[in-house]
C-alpha cells in the first residue's frame, strides 16, 4: 500500500525508484490468506461433490427443486485436479476445510480491525473524494482495458477498479463466506441464528458457493494483473514490501 506519510512531499519518488509499499501486516495476511483461500476453495469443491445441488430456502434435498446442479448425482461435479484431496473423500475434505476455516475466521476480523486502526483501509483502500464520479470510473476502466497501467508515483495509489476489487473481497466476500459457513453449522446456528439472516440454511449454502466463485474470479483477475504489471516486481513487493515504481512513459 502507499505509504505517502513515509516519503516527504518534497522528494516525490519517481519511476525507477525502489519504494516501501506493503506493510508487514498486509504481507503476512496476504500470504496466509492465499494459502487458506486455495485450501478452502479446493476442499470446498470436494465437499460440494458430496451433494452437487444448490437450493434456496431452509430445506433442500434430492426430492426438492435445485437452482443449480453440476454433473449428475452419481458422477463427480469437480475433477480431482481441482479438489483436496484429489480422490473422493468428503471426510478428508472436511478435515482440511474445518481446520483452515480458523485462519479466515480469526484472521479476517483481526486484519479489518488492524486496518481501521492504522488507517490503511480509510487512506489506501477507501474511495477518495470525487473518485466515484462516472467520468473518472470510465477513465479508469478504459485505461485498464488498454493496459495503460499507472507509472511513477501514481502507481503507489490504487485506482477505482483496484479499490473496488480489494474492498469487495475485504468487506463483502470475506464476511459473506465466513458467516454463510457458520450458518451451515447446526451447532453454531443453534447458538447464533446465522442461517435465518440469509433466508435459511440452504440459501446460506448457495451464497457460500457464490462467494467462493467470487473469490475464484478475484484470484483469476488478480493473478492476470500481477503478470501484466510485472510479476517479479509485484511478487517482490508482497514479500519484501519494496516495490520498484514503473518508469514514466515517454
Amino acid at each position, binding site marked *: 500500500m502507499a505509504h505517502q506519510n513515509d516519503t516527504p512531499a518534497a522528494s516525490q519518488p519517481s519511476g525507477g525508484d525502489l519504494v516501501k509499499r506493503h506493510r508487514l501486516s498486509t504481507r503476512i495476511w496476504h500470504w496466509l490468506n492465499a494459502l487458506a483461500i*486455495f*485450501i478452502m476453495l*479446493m476442499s470446498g469443491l470436494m*465437499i*460440494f461433490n*458430496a*451433494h452437487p*445441488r444448490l437450493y434456496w430456502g*431452509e*430445506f*433442500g*434435498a*434430492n*426430492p*426438492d427443486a435445485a437452482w443449480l446442479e453440476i454433473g449428475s448425482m452419481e458422477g463427480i461435479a469437480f475433477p*480431482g*485436479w481441482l479438489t*483436496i*484431496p*484429489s*480422490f473422493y*473423500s*468428503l*471426510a*478428508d475434505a*472436511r*478435515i*482440511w476445510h*474445518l*481446520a483452515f476455516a*480458523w485462519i479466515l475466521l480469526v484472521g479476517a476480523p483481526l486484519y479489518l480491525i488492524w486496518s481501521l486502526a492504522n488507517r490503511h483501509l480509510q487512506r489506501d483502500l477507501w474511495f477518495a473524494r470525487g473518485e466515484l464520479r462516472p467520468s473518472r470510473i470510465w477513465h479508469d476502466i478504459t485505461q485498464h482495458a488498454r493496459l495503460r497501467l499507472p507509472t511513477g508515483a501514481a502507481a503507489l495509489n490504487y485506482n477505482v477498479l483496484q479499490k473496488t476489487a480489494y474492498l469487495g473481497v475485504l468487506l463483502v466476500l470475506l464476511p459473506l463466506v465466513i458467516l454463510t459457513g457458520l450458518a*451451515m*453449522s*447446526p*451447532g*453454531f*446456528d*443453534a*447458538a*447464533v*441464528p446465522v*442461517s*435465518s439472516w440469509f433466508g435459511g*440454511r*440452504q440459501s446460506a*449454502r448457495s451464497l457460500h458457493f457464490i462467494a467462493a466463485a467470487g473469490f475464484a474470479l478475484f484470484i483469476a483477475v488478480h493473478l492476470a494483473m500481477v*503478470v501484466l504489471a510485472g*510479476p517479479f516486481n509485484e511478487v517482490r513487493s508482497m514479500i519484501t514490501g519494496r516495490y520498484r515504481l514503473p518508469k514514466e512513459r515517454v
Partner: protein
Amino acid sequence: MRIVLNRRRLLGTGALGASGLMLSGCDRLNSNPAFRSALQEAGSWHEGAHRLIGGQALAREYAPADMSPVFRVNGTADPATADYNAHVGSGFARWGLQVGGLVKQPLALPLSALQAMQQRVQITRHDCVEGWSAIGQWQGPQLGQVLSLAGLLPTAKFIVFHCADTLEGHPYYESIDLADAFHPQTILAWEMNGKPLSVGHGAPVRLRVERQLGYKHAKYVMRIEARATLAGLYGGKGGFWEDNRDYQWYAGI
C-alpha cells in the same frame, strides 16, 4: 537441442509444475498421520467454541408450513435382519429398548412405555453431512427422562446407541456426550410427521440430537449403553462413520 525459456513460458511452466506439486503435496499431507491429527485437533476446537457461545441453546424449531414435502430416506433403508423383520411383522409389540451399561437400574422399555412417558414434539431441520437439509416433525420422550429412569452412575460420560442395521458389514452405532444427552431437544423419536416412524426413517425409535449432523441421529435404536469411554468399542471412535470414514465425532459443524 536448445530450449528457449522466455519469461512467459517460464511462468507458465512454473504455474503448471506448482499446481501439480501442490496437488500431490496435499494428498501426501492428507495421508501423513501427524499433519492429519494437527488438522483434526484444529477442527475439534469447534465443539468447545459452540459450547462456549451457545451453552445448551436450542436448535431452531419451525412451523408446520415450513416442513419438507418429502423427507428423504438416507443411510440404511431397511435393516432386513430376521429379528428386525419379525418385529416389523408384529408391529414392534414384543420389542423392548434395552438401557444398560453404567446405570443403577438396567431397563427394557416396550414401545408403549416410551409412548406413555411425557412427550416432546419438535419440528426441526435435519442437516446431512453431505449438505442437504430436510424439515420434519418428531415426537418422543426426552432421552434425559429415560436416562434418569435408569439412573446414570457417576462414571458414565458417554451414551452409546446400538442399532439394528449394519453398513458395509459393520454394526451401526453412534454416541453423544452427557451435555447432548440431557439437551431438551434430544429425544427418542417414535413418531415422525404425525405417524409412527416408518422403517425407512428408523422404526421403531431413532435418536434426534438436533444440534448435530444427520449421521449422529441413529436409526433403529435397539440398545442404549452408558459408558465411561468410547475406547474399546468397535473402532473406538464412537460411531460407524467415525470408525470407518474418519468423520468427526462432534458433528455440530
